[in-house]
């Protein structure tokens, strides 16, 4: 096991999430993809912490904070999805163009 394996997995999850954000138009799946990207980054953080063993506790706290921020982000994001769906009857980002310049 080298740190590379974990970093490549992390990069793969980030790229998959990026595809979901860029290539899909369903708001719910967009939010899920953001979660995948956040997860990938957490793995990279922990893998680096294993290389520099003295930083273990800092990395753990950082990952926990990232999880808390992700939970808060999902709560607000899903509330916005509900509000948008109630007003516009759609979760298709292609049809949500009111703010287009």
């Amino acid at each position, binding site marked *: *096991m*080298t*740190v*590379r*394996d*974990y*970093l*490549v*997995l992390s*990069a*793969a*999850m980030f*790229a*998959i*999430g*990026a*595809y*979901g954000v*860029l*290539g899909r*138009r*369903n708001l*719910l799946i967009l939010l*899920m*993809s953001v979660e*995948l990207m956040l*997860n990938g980054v957490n*793995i990279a953080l*922990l*893998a680096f*912490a*294993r*290389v520099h*063993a003295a930083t*273990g*506790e800092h990395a*753990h*706290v950082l990952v*926990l*904070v990232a*999880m*808390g*921020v992700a*939970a*808060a*982000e*999902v*709560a*607000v994001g*899903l*509330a916005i*999805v*509900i*509000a948008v769906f109630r007003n516009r*009857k*759609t*979760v*298709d980002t*292609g*049809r949500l163009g009111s703010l287009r310049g």
Partner: protein
Amino acid sequence: MIVFGAAAAASVIAGVLVVTRRNPVYSAIWMLVCFLAFAVVYLKLGAPFLAAMHVLVYTGAILVLFLFVIMLLNLQPEEYGRELPLSTRVFTALLCLGLFAFIAVPLVRDEALDRPLPPVPADFGSVRHVGEALFTKHALPFELVSVLILVAIFGGVLLAKRKA
């Protein structure tokens, strides 16, 4: 090695299925598989506390919230939204493959990364170690996150509330 390979393959396959399913319910189910595989990766990294927290927060809170909202919206298949044309999707997929290669190729080429990981330090991921750090040296970020989540709860309720 086998455990990590299986968990990595499962999370990547489940991740691809998450972003390609048309029905958000199926995406949520595959996200469950992906998160459980990630918990195994956390265990392999020597972080049992984080693995437990990951399962609790992601599958226990976030995924349930997703499923709850999907049920609440009760989307019909014609409401999933029109997908981008196939050519655009293929282009986006290639772009993201390029992003992956951009990160992964230098990693594979770097010989400094050939060394195997050092054995897990004695108290690397123990509850005691993490808890001590969380409540002494890192108490401020911990409290800030709790304030953030409180604000997010208020924001969520306020945004999703039906207008009177």
